[in-house]
Each structure stands twice: as structure tokens, then as C-alpha cells.
């Protein structure tokens, strides 16, 4: 397993020194602006945060997890003067940044990898967001790619943006305006906005830009023609419906994989439109609602509506676009934006610190919407590097940014910190998961290629074949059904149940016959080997058994190699390690590499992970199930596994004092203080080695562990 990259990153940090100087000037400017404000309001800034507080905070804020024991010690022991800014750079370049900011954006964009046919399009969407973060794609380009996304999932994961609001183009526009322009429009969907100036007409005009986006199934010209052909080839009208069903069955693996763009589709006003500027059900043409006034008339047919929309949204002439992202990232660091709520701006909205707001906006623009650069600037301020404010700041109070606010970790930060206590390489890229998503996409692409390779006539014939097969199966089904009724009437419940399950398995036969009749023969002709083919069809609904076996085998080999490298030769040790890696290691993945959202009842959901149904829906509230989980649940067992990172680190130490410190360093990124040490070392002397476990349990159940100071 790889060790920390600290040394390498330190060297990289030196190369970046030139950049760092420029960045530090900008950070100073922010501190100057805040200093003026402190003076004007008679506020004392907080004391500088200690290295212990800083290292934990910056890991959590950038990499989304606590530092490992080695990482914390490396930083605390370093004598380098610029070690803080070097660490900031190192973390911004780590995979931890990708994971953490993916979680952040997944909450904003409602990335739900479990939505319809998610096995294809939503993992691709998640990968698009991660890739964009990894390459530090400029924010304006990121947004334009989302807004203009169309095509097929295997070519463009960004189509998840429209797939997410499939069938709800008006809601999609409201979400776009809220997320990227910080303005709430939902009210105006049904009537003029009661608290803001937007009219229902503004709303529909805005919606007209993206109204032509359709989240749909993969289709091509042959498939469209085949439908008509079937109708001609089947003489019996009553069979037509069968054929349609057969066709759907053939198309099923390609459901919800594509977003198409219609240049002509425009919204109509609702039937109960009540204002005098237009009549109900009038067609509405695109027009922007603020910023630069752009109107697309019937003569503008050659203009790409979506390009116009995306350009307008992200242009310099639309200041709210910049204000929102600057605020969003500032809030990420300090816990409070300069304009709150940041997604509910009106004309009268004023920043708590107007001069600072203006500076941040200017920086965002001048840097070309460089998100990492912006974060680097903020994290390097004295203000960020001070102690957290000890008093609570009410939602209605103006905050002076004497330091960051005290924040409870997000559900993902807590979970990923637990992962860090278990897994010695918490930022490792989830190669297996990425490969699986990629393969699934590839397979779907292959199936689309099969559809492309067929003539309308071939497709129509195939549909007729499947239709007939469905009918035959139906006869068997009817016969079974009679026997079930008889069995039930005779009081033979067991038999009835058995026959029922037989009847249910008949339905799966249609699916496998589609694979055998349509996809397999064509793929064979196209030169695909057997394995690729079997995978291709079966994987659209999940991982095939063969696939799962293959993955397991690969993992087994990997674990064997690890054990050899570790020099584990005792069979019982090998067995223990193997089970740790197979069970704990595979289950304890970074939140960003799991389903989004995690299933209900999962640790992540208990601690408030967003259900990804509405924008920024995570919560940070305490609830009893959280305490029950940390006190009595599996978390503690995972952490105390003999091969966990924590236990390994504690065992490595010899004296009670060093062992206590190892526990503190792992969970809280600091050694025990004098009082704690005295009390705990005495307890170990009295109670023996069991006491270490008690200490871990206790620290895991403190607020200190859950909050970011």
C-alpha cells in the first residue's frame, strides 16, 4: 500500500513557490479588508490557531477527512516556515480534494446515482463532476458544459444534468437559476413572484432557452423506421401491441441514456395564465430575465439557444454568476457567506462586507474562475488560520469573520474520517469502481452500436420474433396460472407458491431471449469476444455473476500480494487480514466512491447526508440514532479491527503514554494534554490493555471528534 505523499508534495510545493507569493499578496489583501472591518465594528480577531487545530481543520476542509496519524505528525514536526501554505497546495492537489468537493457539489447538483437506469448515466455524471474537479476545470466552463450537455451517456457524462430533471424542464430551469445565479424563481412558475420582481412571463421566457432538452432513450433513424415497418409487416391489428412491447424490450438496455436537443420545441403558457401581456397557452420565446437583455425571435432560428443561454449565464455581464460562486467557496471555508442565503439574492441584497465581496468577485473573474486558486487564497488568509469563534453566531447576526465558525462535520466528513481510522490509504483512487462504471458505459455503447448496425427491416423482424416468443411464453404462463388457482382452491399453499415462482421466472426468459436473439449474434459478427458480449447485455441491470467473480479474483490476488509484502506468513494472521480486507476494506469506502445517496439507514444518512432530492439538503442536526451508532454500532468494531490503521498505529508504540498519544493523534490530530495524559496513563496502569479500547470508544463519542474547530 502506498504511504503518504507528503515528501513528494513538499518538493512540488517548492516548485510552486512563485505562485505562492502572488497568492499570499491576495490573502493579505483579504486580511487588510477584514482588519478595517474589525476596527470599524470594535471586534477583536481570534487568536491564531495552533498547528494542531490547523492541520485537522485543513485536512477536513480540503480532503474531507481527518489527517492520518503520520500526516498529522509530519506536519507538526516540520520546522518549515511555509509549511501551512505547502500543505494547502498539497491537499488541493490530492484525490482527497476530488472526493470532498465531489460530495460538496453532489449536494448542490443533487447527483443521485440511484435514479432511473442509474447504472449507466448517473455514474457517468458523477465521473464527469469528479474529472472536472481533478483537472481543476474553470468554473464557468464547468457550468457551460452542464448547461449545453446533450448526446449519449458514453460520450458525455454531463447529460446527467438534464437527465436528473427528466420530464421536468421548468423545474430544471428553476434549479439552474438558483444554483448558478442565486435567485429563486419557483414561485413565478405559477404566478408573478410575490416577494421579488419576477413575472410568470419572465419565468416562461427563461424556461424557453432549455425547453428543447429531452432526457430520453437511445434512438436512431433505423429504430424509428422499424416501428412503422412492424406495423406494415404484421397484418393482425391485435398483435400490434405485442410488437410494441417487444420493441420496448429490445430497447430496454438503452433506456434513459441520451439527451437530445430540439431547436423548435417551445413552452406554452399554462391554461390558466391570468395576466394581460399574453393569452393562456401562447407559445413563449426565449428572453433573458436580467443582466444583458437577450431575446431570440422567430428570425433567430439559426442561433443555438443553449449556447446563447450558457454564454449569458456565465458572462461578465451577469454579475450574480460570479457573486454566487465566490460566496459559495467563501462559505465553505468560514461557515458563513457574505450574502445569506447565497441562493436567494434580490436586487436589494447587500453583502455584509461590500468591499470584500467586490474583491472576491474580481479575483474570481481575473483568475478565470479558478476554483482551486480561489480556495488557496482563502485558506492562506490569517482570518481562516485563526481559532474558531467560541460564541455562537445567530443566523440573523452579521458575522465579522474573526476566524472560521465552529462547524459540525458533514456526514461525509465524519464517515471519511472513520474510513481514515480504518484504511491506511484513505485517498487511494477507487480503481475498481471506476473500471466498473467505465465498463458499463462501454457495454451500453456497444449495444447502441448493435442498434446502429441493423437495418430497419432487421430490427422489425427481430421485434416480431421476440413478440412471438413473448406470446408463447404467455401461453405457458396462462397454463401455470390455472394450476395455481387449482392448487389454491385445493388448499395446497406450498404448491401454489412454488408454481408462482415458476411463473415469475418465465418473465425473465423474455430478457434473456432478447440477448440471445438480438445482441449476441450481432456482436459476434462485430468481432466481440464471448465475454465482452455476455457482460454487455447482462450488466445494464447490475453486475453479472461472472463479472463479480472476476472482480473478486482480482481483489484476492491483490490481497495476497499485500500479505506477502507485509511478511504475514502465519495462516491465522493471513486469514484475519484477508477477512479484514475483503469485508471491512471493501465496505469502508470513501463516501464519494459509494452510491449517492447512501441507502437509508446507512451511517451517512443517519448523520444527515442529503437524500439528493433537493438542492443542498444535507443536515447537521444531532439525533439519537447517531449516538446509538457510535456507541453500539459497527463503526467501533471496524475501527478496532486488529488490522485497522488505528490499531496498527497504537500497537507500534510501546509505552502507555505513547499509545495514548497515538490514539489522540489519530482521532483528534493532537497528543493528549497533561491532564488527559495523567488520567489515562493511570487508568492504563490500573486496568491494563483493555483501557486503550475504552479510550478509543470514548473519544469517538465526543463532540470534539464531530466538530471542526
Amino acid at each position, binding site marked *: 500500500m502506498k504511504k503518504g505523499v507528503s515528501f513528494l508534495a513538499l518538493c512540488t510545493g517548492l516548485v510552486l513557490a512563485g505562485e505562492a507569493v502572488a497568492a499570499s499578496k491576495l490573502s493579505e489583501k483579504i486580511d487588510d479588508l477584514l482588519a478595517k472591518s474589525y476596527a470599524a465594528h470594535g471586534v477583536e480577531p481570534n487568536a491564531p490557531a495552533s498547528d494542531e487545530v490547523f492541520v485537522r481543520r485543513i485536512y477536513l476542509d480540503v480532503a474531507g477527512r481527518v489527517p492520518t496519524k503520520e500526516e498529522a505528525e509530519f506536519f507538526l514536526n516540520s520546522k518549515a516556515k511555509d509549511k501551512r501554505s505547502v500543505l494547502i497546495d498539497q491537499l488541493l492537489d490530492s484525490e482527497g480534494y476530488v472526493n470532498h468537493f465531489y460530495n460538496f457539489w453532489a449536494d448542490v447538483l443533487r447527483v443521485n446515482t440511484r435514479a432511473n437506469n442509474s447504472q449507466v448515466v448517473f455514474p457517468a455524471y458523477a465521473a464527469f463532476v469528479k474529472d472536472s474537479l481533478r483537472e481543476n476545470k474553470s468554473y464557468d466552463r464547468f457550468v457551460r458544459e452542464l448547461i449545453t450537455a446533450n448526446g449519449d451517456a458514453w460520450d458525455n457524462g454531463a447529460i446527467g444534468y438534464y437527465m*436528473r*430533471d427528466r420530464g*421536468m424542464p421548468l*423545474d430544471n430551469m*428553476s434549479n439552474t437559476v*438558483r444554483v448558478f445565479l442565486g435567485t429563486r424563481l*419557483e414561485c413565478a412558475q405559477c404566478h408573478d413572484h*410575490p*416577494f421579488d420582481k419576477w413575472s410568470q412571463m419572465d419565468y416562461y421566457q427563461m424556461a424557453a432557452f432549455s425547453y428543447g432538452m429531452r432526457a430520453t432513450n437511445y434512438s436512431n433513424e433505423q429504430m424509428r423506421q422499424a416501428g412503422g415497418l412492424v406495423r406494415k409487416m404484421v397484418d393482425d391489428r391485435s398483435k400490434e401491441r*405485442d410488437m410494441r412491447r417487444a420493441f420496448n424490450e429490445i430497447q430496454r438496455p438503452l433506456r434513459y441514456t441520451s439527451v437530445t436537443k430540439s431547436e423548435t420545441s417551445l413552452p406554452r403558457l399554462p391554461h390558466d395564465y391570468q395576466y394581460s401581456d399574453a393569452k393562456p397557452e401562447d407559445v413563449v420565446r426565449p428572453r433573458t430575465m436580467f443582466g444583458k437583455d437577450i431575446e431570440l425571435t422567430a428570425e433567430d432560428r439559426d442561433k443555438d439557444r443553449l449556447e446563447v443561454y450558457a454564454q449569458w449565464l456565465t458572462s461578465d455581464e451577469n454579475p450574480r454568476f460570479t457573486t454566487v460562486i465566490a460566496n459559495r467557496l467563501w462559505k465553505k471555508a468560514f461557515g458563513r457567506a457574505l450574502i445569506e442565503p447565497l441562493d436567494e439574492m434580490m436586487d436589494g441584497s447587500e453583502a455584509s462586507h461590500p468591499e470584500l465581496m467586490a474583491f472576491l468577485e474580481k479575483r474570481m473573474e481575473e483568475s478565470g474562475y479558478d476554483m482551486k486558486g480561489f480556495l488557496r487564497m482563502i485558506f492562506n488568509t490569517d482570518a481562516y488560520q485563526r481559532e474558531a469563534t*467560541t*460564541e*455562537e453566531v*445567530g*443566523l*440573523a447576526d452579521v458575522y465579522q469573520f474573526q476566524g472560521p465558525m*465552529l462547524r*459540525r462535520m458533514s456526514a461525509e466528513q465524519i464517515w471519511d474520517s472513520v474510513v481514515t481510522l480504518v484504511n491506511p490509504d484513505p485517498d487511494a483512487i477507487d480503481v475498481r469502481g471506476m473500471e466498473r462504471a467505465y465498463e458499463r458505459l462501454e457495454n451500453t455503447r456497444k449495444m447502441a452500436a448493435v442498434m446502429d448496425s441493423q437495418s430497419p427491416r432487421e430490427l422489425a423482424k427481430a421485434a416480431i420474433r421476440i413478440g412471438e416468443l413473448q406470446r408463447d411464453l404467455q401461453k405457458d*404462463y*396462462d397454463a401455470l*396460472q390455472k394450476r395455481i*388457482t387449482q392448487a*389454491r382452491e385445493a388448499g395446497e399453499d406450498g404448491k401454489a*407458491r412454488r408454481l*408462482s415462482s415458476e411463473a415469475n421466472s418465465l*418473465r425473465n426468459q423474455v430478457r434473456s431471449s432478447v440477448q440471445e436473439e438480438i445482441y449476441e449474434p450481432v456482436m459476434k459478427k462485430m468481432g466481440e469476444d464471448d465475454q465482452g458480449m455476455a457482460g454487455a447485455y447482462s450488466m445494464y441491470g447490475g453486475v453479472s455473476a461472472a463479472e463479480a467473480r472476476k472482480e473478486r479474483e482480482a481483489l484476492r490476488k491483490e490481497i495476497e500480494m499485500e500479505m506477502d509484502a507485509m511478511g504475514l506468513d502465519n495462516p491465522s494472521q493471513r486469514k484475519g487480514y484477508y477477512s479484514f480486507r475483503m469485508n471491512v476494506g471493501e465496505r469502508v469506502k470513501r463516501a464519494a466512491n459509494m452510491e449517492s445517496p447512501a*441507502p*437509508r*439507514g446507512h451511517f451517512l444518512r443517519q448523520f444527515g447526508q442529503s*437524500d439528493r432530492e*433537493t438542492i443542498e439538503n444535507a*443536515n*447537521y*442536526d*444531532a*439525533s*439519537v*440514532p447517531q*449516538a*446509538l*451508532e457510535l*456507541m*453500539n*454500532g459497527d463503526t*467501533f*468494531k471496524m475501527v478496532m479491527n486488529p488490522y485497522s490503521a488505528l490499531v496498527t498505529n497504537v500497537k507500534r508504540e510501546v509505552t502507555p503514554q505513547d499509545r495514548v498519544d497515538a490514539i489522540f493523534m489519530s482521532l483528534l490530530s493532537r497528543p493528549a494534554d497533561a491532564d*488527559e495524559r495523567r*488520567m489515562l496513563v493511570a487508568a492504563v496502569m490500573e486496568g491494563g490493555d483493555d483501557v486503550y479500547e*475504552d*479510550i478509543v*470508544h*470514548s*473519544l469517538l*463519542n*465526543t*463532540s*470534539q471528534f*464531530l*466538530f471542526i*474547530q
Partner: protein
Amino acid sequence: MKELLQKSDEVTRRNFMSRAASTFLGVGMMPAANELLSGKVYGAGAGASALRQVPTAKNVIYLYMSGGMTHLDTFDPKPGAETQGPTKAIKTSADGVRIGEYLPRTAQQMHHACIINSLTSTQGAHEQGRYFMHTSYTLRGTIRHPAMGAWLLKFQDRLNETLPGNVVIGNASRHPGAGFFEARYSPLMINNPEAGLQNSKRMKDVTEDQFHSRIDLAQKLDQKFQEKYSHKGVRAYKDMYDDAVGLMQSKDLAAFDLSQEPTELREAYGDDAFGQGCLLARRLVENNVRFVEVSLGGWDTHQGNFVRAPERCDVLDRGLATLLEDLHRRGMLDETMVVVATEFGRTPDINQNVGRDHYPKAFSALLAGGGVKGGTIYGKTDEEGREVVEGKMEVPDLNATIGYGLGLPLDHVLYSPSKRPFTVAHNGQPFAEVFA
């Protein structure tokens, strides 16, 4: 905006302010005044009236038939009609009330129940239909509306300080929960009713003494931190641990322990997650948990309706009939409203797969207990079960009727964080006629 807030209905406002500091799902998050002004939900006076009907029900057990329960084969049989298929109608314990033959046990309880045969919905897809049925609002991409259990707690709060007020049993993964209300109104989700409350027991190898010394140690180690940061979020975590330890020792926890029930009764409820869920629901209600939903899936009978509907009915029949009988015997039926609901009915026309497809136009529900007039049928469909011809009830009306039984202020407007106005059943009209 301020003006709107100042008109805030006093009753709700007072409830809001006096909410006990320790609540099961969201401890100690008692809203301070400033949070009321700028926090998530706003009580407001627009159209709010002080008038409330006298509640007849204290609790609700809401049995949700997920997938779309066929109305013709359950509560709205049409003997002799071509659309009926092989399902026969049987007599019940209520004069003149007949139901489908697959519900023989329920038939013996019909003197407690009111069948509604005139429901109609505008939503013909599962997710949209379920959402509409639970919230009275149509599914939108910009907001999540609260389900009925959350509305009940929002207005009337919990009765048991230790247990959650709102529980959902079964595999309802996309339940709207508390919607835009605070997280503390979210239902506790229980997948397996027989597993008890998750993590409520000490780990096996930990003695009681050891457990308490660990918790004491945690408090000691956290003391400096807690003194330094006097935040309500930090205090909430301290309170939460007190509550969690209290819950672990509470006798109320036994509510989750089905093994305390006699074997015969457990068997009568049915040896399946739904039946045991109904039993758990009764035990929870007995302990003053106010809203319990139990879901039963598998009603989406596009194929083989007459094979699969009887199977589903058998499960429903054991659970529902035993629940009604059990509640009645314990004298709890008067204060507990039992509801059977689903997202839509199924087509009267039988398709080529001997199945029935989605049919939101006309379908059935059942209400029993909690003041509901037993042995009655409300509303009517035509001879083939196609159209509602009498007493049409929209989905919000059904929820308004449930809310009416609970004494909820149906016209009381609450504002979402986006400041849009919402009411408990989206202006549905309660059908007071179904009450005795």
C-alpha cells in the same frame, strides 16, 4: 416579510417555542427566536383560523399498498361484470358490504371499517402517485413536501419523549419524510420490524459497568471543549447522549421487542415483514408513537393479476384483520385510525397478460377506527369499476379527512424555506360524513 411573520398564528408559535428541548430525532434543537425568524419554516397567519374540529383520533396506522392495489379484486368488487375476472365477492360482518374473496379475515372486521370506493388521482406513475398520496402535492424537482406523519408532529408534537413520534416500517426508500420541515420531524425508518431498534443494545462483549465508564470518560474528555464552545449544536450533542443512554435503559424500548407477544398472536399477524410490521405498529402506538406507516409492496400486477393479487391480499388480510381485532380488543381502536391506501387502482380491463395496468381514475381506500363510522361504504364507481359516479374524493381530500380526524388545522398555512405557502392537505376537503 417581517409583517407576515408577526401575524404568525399564536397557537403554532407557542407550540413551536415550547417544544421540549430533547426530541428523539434532533435533540435539543429548540429553535431560538432568531431561528424562528430566519430559520427554515415560518408560521403565518394568512387564512389561519382558530377553529378546529374536535379530534376523534390520536394516532394513525397507515398501511400503504405500494405498486397500485387493484380495487376490483379487493374493496370494490363488481360481481357479474366482465371486468371482474375470476375474483368473487364475499359477504362481510357488515350488512350489505361485500369485498373480494381474497380478504376473508378482513371481511369479518368490516363492521369497524369504512370503505372508500370513489378515490381518484391525477398521477398515473408509481413515484409520482406515491408522492401525491403521501403529501397531497405533486412531485416537483424544486421542493420536497412533508408527509402526513411530519405534519401531525409539526402541529401536535410527540406524546412520548423517549420514542420517535413518526415511524415508517418497510422498504419505503423514497418516502418524502419530513419534506422541507426540520429533520427532527423525519420518520424513523425501520426495514426489519423484527430486528428491534437499530443499535439500541450494548455491544455483546461490553459489560454495563464498562459501558458507563466509557460514557463517563467521554464526558470527562469532552468537558473542556464543551465549556469553550457554548453553541447549541454542541449542547445538542451532549443532550443527545443523555437521551440515547436514557433510551437504552428505558422500558419504552421494549415497544420494539416483538418477542414479548404471544406466539399465536404473532402468527395471526402473518409470518412476514408486513404482518410483523403491523404488530410493531400496534406496540408503538400503545407507547404513544403517533404516526406509524407500514408498507406492503408487490401490487404492480401488470401480469398475472389473478395469481399475484391473491398472494398480496393474503398478506394484507392477515395483517389488517388481526390489527383491527387486536386494537379493538385492547380498546385502542377508538383513538387509532387505521388507513389502507395506495397510489392508484388498476384497469378494469384485463390485459393480454391477464394483468391489470395503472388506473388512477377510480380506486379504493379503507378507514377504520379513530371515530370512523364502521360498516359503511363511501362513494361508488359504475357497474364496471371504471368511473366514480358518487362521492368523488380527490387524493388531498383523503388526507384532509385523516387530518380532520386528528384535529389538524387544515387551513393553517406554513411557509417553506423558499417562502411558498403550504397547508396540511393542500386545500383538500375533509369528508366529515365518514365519521360517526
